[in-house]
């Protein structure tokens, strides 16, 4: 009758020693190496603590239906200003008038967030050549996934041409520019304030350079990027000057500062993976040392009652 192994278990040798002994010192040193070694190794190879991380989100953007359109004509000392800020509207401009503005925000994928804004301005002018435009569009910009950020942001488009134009078409992306990582929690309403003073009192000051400098100083701001623009040369004395702009609100990468548990989780994953290797290696070292009696200790053999 053949015999085969059905079950096995390990016998456990125990080594005992006093507190003040070389074996104690050895164990303490080995334990310290096991605990601190992986930490030092992982920390020195960078990226132990996760400082920043990235995620993707499509922002919730709304056009606030506030704009400033400055049209520079051959009457260079008297540009035509079209705006929803009525203190800026130059009704006394004898040559032109901002007649029609059409805008539409479209949600292409029906996910509840607008994907693009298309806006068209028709400006009626009399015998005036147009040489440049400056357009400021005001947006409401919201992020939800990490910290809840809401701010008023600006889309600024400028074009200046040597030839008089009859039409200007542009398409662009509204991109968020961040100077610092976003927070991963909380509400950030710091920039949810008016960029252009909207108290419609007469004599309200409007200084574009101050507005842009203040805006450029912000921690988070939006910029029109990926611009493709077309200036169609021509005179618009007969018909209106047409300005069409399509602005996309794309999904975008955002850098944020991870929360405590995410940082700890990443650190732990790195630490534990190296720790396992250390445990294995130093267990072998300990086994070798004690089995070969390189360090004196009292060995208890399981099948003997006493020493």
């Amino acid at each position, binding site marked *: 009758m053949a015999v085969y192994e059905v079950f096995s278990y390990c016998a456990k040798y125990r080594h005992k020693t006093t507190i003040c002994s070389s074996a104690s010192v050895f164990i303490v040193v080995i334990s310290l190496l096991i605990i601190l070694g992986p930490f030092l190794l992982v920390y020195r190879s960078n990226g132990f603590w996760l400082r920043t991380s990235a995620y993707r989100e499509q922002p919730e953007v709304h056009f*606030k239906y*506030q704009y400033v359109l400055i049209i520079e004509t051959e009457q260079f000392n008297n540009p035509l200003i079209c705006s929803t800020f009525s203190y800026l509207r130059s009704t006394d401009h004898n040559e032109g008038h901002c007649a029609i503005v059409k805008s539409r925000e479209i949600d292409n994928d*029906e996910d509840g967030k607008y994907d693009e804004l298309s806006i068209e301005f028709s400006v009626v002018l009399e015998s005036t050549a147009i040489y440049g435009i400056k357009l400021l569009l005001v947006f409401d910009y919201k992020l939800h996934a990490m910290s809840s950020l809401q701010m008023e942001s600006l889309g600024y488009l400028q074009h200046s041409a040597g030839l008089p134009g009859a039409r200007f078409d542009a398409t662009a992306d509204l991109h968020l520019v961040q100077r610092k990582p976003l927070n991963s929690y909380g509400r950030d309403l710091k920039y949810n304030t008016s960029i252009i003073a909207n108290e419609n*009192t*007469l004599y309200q000051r*409007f200084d*574009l350079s101050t507005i842009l400098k203040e805006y450029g100083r912000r921690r988070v701001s939006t910029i029109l990027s990926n611009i493709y623009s077309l200036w169609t040369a021509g005179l618009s004395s007969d018909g209106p000057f047409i300005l069409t702009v399509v602005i996309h609100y794309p999904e975008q990468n955002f850098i944020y500062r991870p929360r405590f548990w995410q940082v700890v989780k990443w650190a732990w994953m790195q630490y534990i993976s190296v720790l396992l290797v250390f445990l294995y290696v130093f267990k072998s070292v300990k086994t070798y040392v004690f089995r070969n009696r390189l360090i004196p200790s009292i060995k208890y053999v399981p099948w003997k009652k006493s020493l």
Partner: protein
Amino acid sequence: MTFLKRKVFILLMCIVYALSEDILSSHTEDPLTISVCNNDTENGHCETITTHPSIENSTEFNSSSTTEEIANSTVTQEIEENQNISTEVAETTTLPPSSVPSTLSSTPTPERTTAEPSYDMHFVPEDICSCDITVDYCDINCCCDEDCSASDRQVFSHCFKRPSIAADPRYCYQTNFVYRNNTEYKMVQNKEGMFCILWDNLPSETRFLKRKIVTKLKDFKKLFERRKIYQWKLDVIKEPVFQPVMYRAGTIVWSISNATLSPLVLPNKQITAFCEVSLPVQYLIDWSGSCSSVGLTCTSKSGLSASSYYENVFVIATPQLMNHTHMMYFLEQQECSYNICLPFSLFLCSPDTVSVEDCSLVDDIEVPSYGNETGLCSNVVKQVKYRLHHNGTLGIIKAEAFFWVVNLKSGQTDLKQTFSVEFVWADAPRRVLHRSGNPGYIFGKPVIAGQKIFRSETEEEPDKEAILLSEEQSKWLTFPKPGTGGLCISSMAEGSRIPVNFGENLLSSCIIQLSVRNFSSPENCSLLQRKFLHMLLGDVMINVTEAKQFNMYVSTFGDANVEETGDWVPVLLENMPILSVDWKEEGASLVCKSVVTSLHINIVTSKVGLATKPQTKILGVAVTFGGGRDLVFSCSPSPCSSVDVSKRQKFEIQSSVSFVDVSKPPVIHFAEPPVYEVKLPYDFFYPFLSSGGVKLTYCCYILSTTILFLWQLVLKLLVD
């Protein structure tokens, strides 16, 4: 192969469980196969390319007998014959039929279209015929339009596609294996999750909710609720309203101009550099701005005339006084008493004056007038300054207007005008010393500099040190200022030098014109050296022959105290220029050797004080004169003795300043730990200490308790 040469292609798909990448790349015997399958999911889940089941295929399905397709997952589309496609197809592989799930094995009969298809545009009935736009009128290329007859349809080039339907991303797709999607449908892969719908045997229909129409305004407004809606805003400009309350800082200053009550305004620029708008003067807010006027006409009406800024303009002293009775009186009589409506006292300043103290009081300023003989438009306003003396709550006491006028040449088209408003306390001294910070310097404020003097105020201290600080900022640390054409302004008066402002690393240069007389002798060259040094550093360089004599002190803090000489640092000279300059005549040119024409000042600053409120302090100032330059006056072609004295040559002088911040990072100062005084009963250590009532500090207490504890531990161990 003939089949491939036709104009048909397909969007594909299917499935197989065990097809690996290498099989994929292998060539197949049957080139008709256009389906590709792959299993890249570990659970044997099939990746299928489908479209939404609701997409019906209006065009024909194409397939070969060996191609496995999901009936409602393929969309065929006519395309032009394309060599690429046939290559791609040749590289695909056949699938063993057994590996295809039975539910997917329905194979539509292939139907081939010709290379030149004859368009058979028959009537295609649809539930919603969205291309039928015109009433009782045949819409071109609209195959569902009932108004079109069969013969009408013959002229159609194609049928309008129905509006594209977004594919449901919950269904299984594998876009990686769609080599070429030439359908109108876009593939979107569901990236949120591991599972996708492979086969839906009860396809649901997605519909929008039925919405009721609204007939009541209340219900209409309800629809807007809980939605942040942005829309065009139609509003009107609010005119500032006159209220008979006292002025506060920032409120609009009112005036009666041309018998109407309106804000006191000055022209300003808005978008261009031209005077476009009028901005109101705000109470207690100093302001200055400049803008250009165009379309100049030499008349008394325009903004070029001084009269437009003061004639018939009366400043309301305080709106409080302009109460109802006064207002009624004003409206009826068009008059206003002089204690309420203040007329401007007029001052005329000569073009060079900067300080208004030098302007002269006049009764009237002439209106611009064109002189036919001179061809000039005289008395054109270049600069206007309103100075309003106020008494805080009592409002404006006195109004002064200062005018600088120039003459315009007839061809001049534009003129830059400067406008400013200044408010001064009525009882304040005429000159107010402005601090440059309190205590630390503020960025952009002038660096305060003075000279050390000894004065005997009292008999006890006959030689008390003090700093002589000029009231004029131009006597502080300043650089020469370029005037018209870049020529250095030789005057040392206020406003004719560039102040060295704290923190601004400034580089300035200007031009000095010299005639042959300045080069005629060695003495004149030495005078030239002195002239340059005087120009560079100002009056402090007069009578300085060696570095020790240089007497200039800079205040370390912005709030300079002339009595505390310890708060001032001497300006050090790194090198002293040699005052006696060599002179040489080289052919047709005269040379003054190594004349100092440049100057650099290094100012070392540091942040001091609390890190939360850092104050900037000047630690030291050193002046370095630039290396001497040989100034050559070229007389050629004529010899130098006969050169006209009026012939002048230009020489540039440069000055610069650098601020170097040597701040060290702030150090944390911890508060000293409190000292615990532990009082033990006097006999606590009775046998050990001879005297009772021992006072122990916290430290000693800790030490003693630790010793006791350790002692007990040792005892315990010994007992064990």
